[in-house]
């Protein structure tokens, strides 16, 4: 998905329906999770999620300001 399509300017995004419908059948418990590259807001360092989970159980909340 392009950045323009992903970052919708007007709520609700039309892709909401697909995301809500897809979630229940998506990435089930027991499966290996994706390992995206992320940036630490405070340090600016790039890291892989796996580098964190290797250290122990990890709770990940997804969200935004709005």
């Amino acid at each position: 998905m392009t950045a323009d399509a992903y970052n919708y300017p007007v709520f609700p995004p039309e892709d909401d329906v697909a995301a809500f419908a897809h979630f229940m059948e998506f990435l089930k418990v027991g499966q290996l999770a994706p390992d995206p590259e992320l940036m630490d807001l405070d340090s600016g360092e790039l890291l892989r999620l796996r580098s964190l989970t290797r250290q122990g159980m990890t709770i990940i909340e997804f969200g935004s300001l709005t």
Partner: protein
Amino acid sequence: MDDLAETYAERGVQSIFLYVREAHPGENFPHHTSFGQKQEQARVFQERWHCRRPILLDDLNGTAHEAFGRMPNMTYILGNDHRVLFRADWTDASTVQFAVDYLLSVDAREEEGTAIEPFYAELRGFRWENVGGFAAGLEYNGPRAVSEFRQAKLRWSRGEHLGALNKLRGRE
């Protein structure tokens, strides 16, 4: 969720906040058009909500968000083998606490001599609907965010857009 993070950090459980796209863009905090803007709005989030957990940023295209299911405020718990232990399409601290307590109890059961075997399980969650806080958040974003959510609720009540899906999932 920050209180929960601090409570369980003492037991070796890590917590992070993964910052993704703006769910309800408004005049004050619009949709992201650059990574720099995303960083700035993440810092506003950090200060406004006094977030004490490490904040990690997804890229501008939402690569991580997409890979985990693209829900606006979902929660995952991953094990040290990077496998999914728990997931929920919304975040609710009491539900997450319930899951963490259960998962931590597995070690104790094994230490007691119980033979443990993983299996597949699901749970219907019930979350706190923070109506007042949510409305205040929309107002903080600007009048457009308030108006667009009001219009969306009308569409849902008519069965349009997410309306039919919410009914199917037992939400209405």
